[in-house]
């Protein structure tokens, strides 16, 4: 049993800046109480938080952690298989290098769960994996090997294939995604029919379609779109095919909040800080306060390494500086990120039964000068400043 006493606790589930003790056992939160040592005895391991802010470990809902590594260009870059724009059979999990420095950066930024995705160079890039950020092997890290598909409606895809093959235009980007989904739907129908009734032959095995058909069983799809017209295309396609989807990056979401609201779009926004180009021209941390004002719940993502994962809290601070409430800022990196990734049963808040992924901060989390001082994953200290 582990007791973290004297926390200024923000548990993202009702407790906000209250003095509490946290109790963890077997890697899970056991209890949140006022005086754990008198309740559970003094013989346990005790960490004194000394009244510092304590939050759940951050959940990074969209990044390329371990897939596009630090330092190495060719050797460590496995994010973009730019040989075919439709590659649903790829799995980010197969590329994750747990010894990438990015994992240490994640811990130093208080990020304990990350959804590692393929890059944005393909229309359908493959599947994303949910991992914890400490561990020596991928099997130690992994939470969900194939959490969601990644699709992209961005200029990156057009630029990647320019002069080589389709898509060259947004018309073809949308058409190629639709074509893949229609084929996968037919494949899914034939496959299900053969499963249910042995008199039917299953369809001829097609690895792409065999993977992609899972979206018709409700497997989530992350659709990256930055510009507002790409966002509306993403919504249109997702609704046509009844996809269980989230909108990712969503740079221009703050320009069309009414559209997002009308369609109940779940937005994973970010990175909202960084280099500008045509697609990112409206990249601005203002996105946080605009979505909050429009009562659109959102999660925040660094898109690491687009923006470094250790800057997760800094991104929230930039949003806070532009009017986002501190509570909504912290929700974006914890419980909302967990919910939008379907991980809320395990992470995103500190509640009995959930993973003991905990950050003790050395100051107010939304301040340039604060850092994650101690980080625990499943009850074990994995990082100390």
């Amino acid at each position: 049993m582990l007791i973290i006493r004297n926390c200024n606790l923000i548990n993202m589930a009702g407790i906000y800046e209250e003095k509490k003790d946290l109790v963890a056992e077997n890697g899970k939160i056991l209890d949140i109480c006022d005086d754990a040592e008198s309740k559970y005895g003094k013989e346990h391991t005790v960490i004194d938080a000394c009244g510092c802010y304590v939050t759940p470990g951050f959940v990074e809902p969209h990044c390329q952690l371990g897939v596009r590594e630090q330092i190495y260009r060719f050797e460590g870059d496995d994010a973009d298989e730019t040989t075919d724009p439709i590659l649903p059979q790829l799995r980010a999990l197969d590329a994750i290098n747990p010894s990438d420095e990015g994992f240490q950066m994640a811990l130093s930024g208080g990020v304990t769960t990350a959804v590692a995705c393929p890059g944005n160079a393909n229309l359908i890039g493959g599947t994303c994996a949910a991992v914890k950020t400490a561990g020596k092997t991928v099997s130690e890290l992994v939470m969900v090997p194939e959490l969601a598909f990644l699709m992209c409606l961005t200029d990156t895809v057009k630029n990647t294939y320019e002069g080589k093959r389709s898509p060259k235009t947004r018309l073809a980007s949308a058409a190629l995604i639709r074509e893949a989904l229609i084929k996968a739907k037919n494949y899914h129908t034939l496959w299900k029919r053969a499963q249910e009734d042995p008199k039917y032959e299953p369809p001829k095995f097609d690895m792409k379609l065999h993977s992609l058909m899972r979206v018709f069983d409700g497997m989530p799809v992350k659709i990256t779109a930055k510009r507002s017209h790409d966002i509306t295309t993403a919504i249109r396609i997702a609704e046509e095919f009844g996809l269980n989807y989230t909108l990712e990056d969503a740079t221009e979401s703050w320009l069309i909040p009414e559209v997002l609201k009308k369609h109940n779009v779940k937005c994973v926004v970010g990175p909202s800080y960084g280099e500008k180009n045509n697609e990112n021209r409206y990249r601005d941390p203002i996105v946080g306060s605009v979505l909050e004002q429009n009562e659109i719940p959102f999660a925040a993502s660094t898109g690491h390494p687009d923006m470094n994962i250790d800057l997760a809290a800094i991104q929230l601070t930039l949003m806070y500086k532009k009017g986002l409430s501190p509570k909504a800022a912290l929700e974006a990196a914890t419980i909302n990120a967990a919910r939008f990734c379907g991980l809320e049963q395990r992470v995103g808040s500190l509640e009995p039964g959930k993973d003991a992924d905990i950050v003790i901060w050395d100051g107010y989390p939304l301040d340039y000068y604060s850092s994650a001082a101690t980080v625990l994953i499943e009850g074990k200290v994995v990082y100390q400043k």
Partner: protein
Amino acid sequence: MLLIKNGTLITMTGIYKQTGDILIENGKISRIGNDLPVSEGCKVIDAAGKVVTPGLVDAHCHIGLWGTVSSAEMDGNEYTSPALPGLRGIDALKWNDPTFNVAVRHGVTTVVTGPGSANIIGGTFTAVKTAGKDLDSRVVKQETCMKMALGENPKFCFGKQNKAPKTRMMNAAIMREQLFKAAEYHEKYKKHGDDPEFPYDFHMHSLMRLFDGMRVKIHAHQADDIQTAIRIANEFGLRYSVDHCTEGYLIVDELAKNHVQCLLGPTVGGKSKMELSHRSFDAGRILEEAGVTFGLITDAPFVPIEGQLLQAALYVKSGLSREMALKCLSINNAIITDIDSRVGSLEPGKDADVVIWDVEPLDTMAQAGIVIIDGQVVYERKAGESNVDYQEL
């Protein structure tokens, strides 16, 4: 005339957080003191309780050359030949790029901007103010430094075209060859320049100015590249700075011994290539402790210009003193780019580029309240104004 009264002054040259007044006349600072008299017709800004600094300077960025919304605006790297000293950043400067407005909103009043690091010799950097009705009124110095580069960028940029340089050896050889030629040209020009038959060489004519004292900005990240820069600069007696200087903190004694002036940054961001493997915010503290003269640069767009103070705050978080961090964003950047006679500090005779902050500029919640360039208020934050940076696009 404009009088800024009772501000908490940080002049960068002596006064650190003392209350005082600044009198501005004809676009210049004319007096700094206490209880300066208000003459008739003089506009007064009450800065009581506010922090007053010089306008911030960015000593190395690519604003106006790199484009923001279209590849048609990308004018940073003429990678058709590795040595092009005749190029001038100012000739590609989109002086009304909206990024300049963002700079103003964040207290940056002067930027030194120019070509990228694809070429061994890329051309000259220009120093401009971030507001003003046209290019002429913004120019501080048309050509202030010559840009050179070592390390990965030139060798990858040309190597992949199967052209020289492909290695660091060739990087250095091309730089030396150009400098030998320029030194020779310079000598001949001094003797025979008036001769109408003097064989004029466009690129050498530009590069020879190094031997009249024009500064060089040498892009180098890795310790070995920094030492190559020092070696070549010493061989040719160049006035220079090492720009980026990512691994400089690992060889800080070398920097101190050779009196190398350094421009650190961009430091916010990933280790996207080998030569950034040791990128660290500790560099600021270590250079300060060793007494090295250095500035902090955004290299915008790589750290966006609105991120200049955030980057400096992260250096402070790793132990750089606040006072030095502010100098690194103003007077040091001005000194290292030869524009300190006009900008970088609050001193009588200098350009009246002044920022009034509600809280200290390195505080998390800091925002520029009033920004003055050449004595004109170019930005004033209004209560309830939109917080969007790129609204003008």
